[in-house]
């Protein structure tokens, strides 16, 4: 694993890439039958043989915990790793609003096809049809499974499940547990995992961080782990490796992700040969609490579900300093309702975010720093009563009041977009296997189902679909067919990986520079937000591609990592993550620069319709860009997976 310390790739113009075409291995046949047929055609592992296979699962969020639990139930020998002190604390826990499922309990016209259609369209036609259709099919099983586990979803007085609406859909298909749906779903998966830990099918390793992937004879066969308490670098052998390590929003420093969320697992897998797809597809969530000051360490999301009852507006007069309650109706600009009458405040996230940026950039921002827009509940409170709003969003309102010191029952919330989710990730085929055989990637860590923009309440759905219902089948298929030789941690590949990890720790501790890890991270984040955030241009991306290597070089020369390597050292952990963010940031910008179109969360300002909507270029860019590492300082190889749309017609997205 070479570490890119010097500004070797200073890109001043678009480099040319070696290109290749990728086949995702989608089974033939009509889309509704693909998964059923494929399940039958896949090879099985005899129940008595399952315990002979060891599967290493990294991450214990919805995807990782559900996968580890389900594989354990099947009888595999599972080892599960997470960096938190308990698997229950993975960041899925913070998801608020809900989980989509095509149950059509509302009789409002929902169906598997409609969920599939909405997801493809919401993703701005940059997702693989067959995967998304499977996701929509499985969505209904997830709700069944979670209810059986005891997830306390919201109910109606009749005792049946309640649903609500989310952005990008005109049906009410989102199941929820107050504003803590992610927490309850994760606890369901955590409890299933705990049951398997007790049954000894899963061996749990909390407070450990994966620092390298070991590939032997072209297959993923192990990992290098740092024990975060003792600092010990350890190696583990497996017959397959599953990465469910989440997204990379923290490249931007300020995001709604937990502080520990990082890209090290996927980045190190990338450097070992796994393709990284569509890294520039980042989601900026429209409803977060605006930045309050320089010392801000993270941003807090206010669930999209609030857009069910909240109305978004800014004053019609720029720089209006009046109390929002004193601004008469006629002087308010409900810009989403005016511009998108059909979807109103429930347009998809990318559309809502760009609209907020546009009004704030034109000087209509509200709040002391003029960096927000109002999300106003007064109409809903008048119509439904404060108690109904409290029942629906009480915990979110409390959270808002805590952070801002303002009472959202009395004055409108102030919100602004923030980095929230990354659609890009490691490339996987239909079986969720990466380009390295034996390395499977689930949940946000893979690139698969959301195209260029994820719809609200679909991340939980995808994580659980991958972990509970897809991987348990495809893993068996892989293990039943792979010829896996006996491997031990004495293999030179393990020794080498262990050495490079150990070496990096030593290097960090030896730099003894003058700047903290956080100061570098903040600077990188600001650069990325300015140059590769909600709006991107060739010029801003070129700027970032010049700056990142310079900053990275300074980081490696001047970072100050105090303490030692043999105990709990949180600065050392952060340093490793930030080092990887630096390299990933460059690939994000490169991908954004190469994609000469706007789609979903990737908005290149040069490519927009006359009324400011994202302008796709289907002729040239209807493909997944899966980047392949070619060495430090060398341009990566561009593998293209063409996207074919046989069931949803490509069209300009419209929510008007």
């Amino acid at each position, binding site marked *: 694993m070479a570490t890119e310390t010097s500004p070797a790739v200073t890109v001043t113009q678009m480099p040319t890439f070696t290109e290749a075409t990728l086949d995702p291995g989608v089974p033939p046949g009509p889309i509704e039958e693909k998964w059923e047929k494929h399940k039958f055609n896949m090879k099985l592992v005899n129940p008595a043989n399952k315990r002979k296979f060891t599967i290493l699962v990294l991450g214990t969020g919805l995807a990782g915990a559900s996968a580890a639990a389900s594989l354990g139930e099947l009888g595999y020998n599972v080892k599960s790793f997470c960096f938190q002190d308990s698997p229950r604390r993975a960041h899925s826990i*913070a998801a608020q609003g809900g989980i989509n499922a095509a149950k059509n309990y509302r009789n409002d016209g929902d169906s598997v096809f409609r969920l599939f259609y909405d997801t493809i369209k919401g993703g701005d036609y940059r997702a693989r049809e067959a995967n998304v259709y499977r996701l929509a099919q499985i969505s209904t099983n997830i709700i069944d499974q979670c209810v059986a586990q005891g997830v306390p979803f919201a109910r109606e007085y009749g005792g*049946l499940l309640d649903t609500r609406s989310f952005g990008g859909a005109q049906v009410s298909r989102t199941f929820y547990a107050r504003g803590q749906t992610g927490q309850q779903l994760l606890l369901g998966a955590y409890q299933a995992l705990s049951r398997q830990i007790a049954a000894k099918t899963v061996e749990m390793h909390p407070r450990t961080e994966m620092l390298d992937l070991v590939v032997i004879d072209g297959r993923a066969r192990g990992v290098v782990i740092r024990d975060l308490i003792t600092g010990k670098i350890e190696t583990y052998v497996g017959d397959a490796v599953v990465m469910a390590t989440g997204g990379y929003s923290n490249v931007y420093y300020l995001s709604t992700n937990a*502080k520990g969320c990082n890209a090290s697992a996927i980045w190190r897998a990338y450097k070992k040969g796994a393709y990284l797809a569509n890294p520039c597809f980042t989601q900026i969530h429209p409803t977060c609490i605006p930045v309050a000051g320089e010392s801000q360490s993270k941003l807090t999301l206010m669930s999209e579900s609030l857009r069910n009852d909240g109305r978004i507006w800014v004053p019609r007069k720029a720089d209006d300093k009046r109390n929002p309650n004193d601004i008469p109706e006629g002087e308010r600009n409900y810009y989403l309702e005016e511009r998108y009458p059909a979807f109103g405040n429930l347009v998809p996230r990318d559309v809502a975010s760009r609209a907020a940026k546009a009004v704030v950039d034109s000087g209509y921002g509200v709040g002391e720093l003029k960096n927000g827009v109002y999300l106003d509940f007064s109409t809903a409170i008048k119509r439904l009563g404060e108690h109904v709003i409290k029942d629906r969003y009480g915990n979110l309102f409390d959270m808002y009041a805590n952070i801002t010191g303002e009472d959202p029952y009395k004055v409108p919330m102030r919100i602004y977009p923030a980095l929230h989710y990354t659609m890009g990730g490691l490339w996987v085929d239909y079986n969720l296997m990466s380009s390295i055989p034996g390395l499977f990637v689930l949940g946000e860590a893979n690139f698969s189902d959301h195209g260029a923009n994820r719809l609200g309440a679909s991340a939980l759905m995808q994580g659980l679909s991958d972990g509970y219902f897809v991987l348990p089948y495809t893993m068996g298929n892989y293990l039943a067919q792979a010829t896996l030789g006996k491997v031990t941690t004495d293999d030179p590949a393990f020794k080498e990986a262990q050495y490079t990890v150990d070496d990096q720790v030593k290097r960090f501790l030896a730099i003894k520079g003058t700047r*903290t890890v956080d100061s570098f991270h903040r600077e990188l984040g600001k650069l990325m937000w300015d140059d590769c955030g909600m709006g991107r241009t060739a010029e801003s991306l070129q700027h970032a591609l010049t700056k990142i290597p310079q900053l990275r070089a300074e980081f490696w020369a001047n970072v100050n990592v105090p303490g030692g390597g043999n105990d709990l050292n949180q600065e050392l952990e952060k340093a490793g993550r930030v080092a990887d963010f630096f390299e990933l940031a460059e690939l994000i910008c490169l991908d954004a620069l190469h994609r000469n179109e706007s789609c979903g969360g990737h908005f290149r300002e040069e490519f927009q319709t006359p009324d400011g909507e994202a302008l796709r270029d289907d002729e040239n860019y209807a493909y997944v860009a899966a980047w392949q590492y070619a060495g430090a300082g060398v341009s990566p190889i561009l593998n293209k997976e063409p996207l074919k749309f046989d069931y949803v017609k490509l069209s300009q997205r419209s929510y008007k």
Partner: protein
Amino acid sequence: MKLHLKVWRQKSGNRQGHLVDYELDNVSPDESFLEMMDLLNEKLIEKGEEPVAFDHDCREGICGSCGMVINGIAHGPKAAVTTCQLHMRNFKDGDTVVVEPWRASPFPIIKDLVVDRSAFDRIIQAGGYISVSTGSAPDANTLPVGKEQSDLAMDAAQCIACGACVAACPNGSAMLFTAAKAAHLGLLPQGQPERNRRAVLMINQQDAEGFGGCTNIGECEAVCPKSISMDFIARLNRDVLVGTIAGAGRVEA
């Protein structure tokens, strides 16, 4: 504003710890308590000292990672918030702020303010789940659950396992934590088949971990960031009693 901090520093579990004094300037009232700690750590690193280790992750009050005893109160002076949600506007310029880790023998200190709460995981592993394997569930709406019942289960299910209840309890009891899980699952029809057995198994594990017994003091409820009610402890006691009479503990032992 300016603060006088007294922070517990302890190199590792088997070393002696002590309170160390720090003066911290330029603290903004809009900062969270953890952002204030970040600021302290930046200053310490710049001075060439080791920063204070503390657990934290989501910083929005849901992951349960953070937890500090602030001026003698778990999660600090404001009710119903975690340490990460506590903002500095709750303090005054010139205040002295004492910051300590959770103190309970089942939560051994790892370093500074970081403690080992894996005992909680083992209580859940002992029985804090509904035994249902993937793929075996019937349609979700075949089992109606009354709204009041479901809401009450949700009240209990909100527990974030931060451990403040244990830190606040003079007995070092984990009853609020265990009761919250037992009530969440025991209030739902899905959880009935294993209800009493689950309660007994979790209680047995709780005792084995060295947590103290409950004497209805109520400090746990007072510091709980999710305002989980002590009433759930009564439910747990009832389930344990019925389960014990039915011989659940003996069968499993």
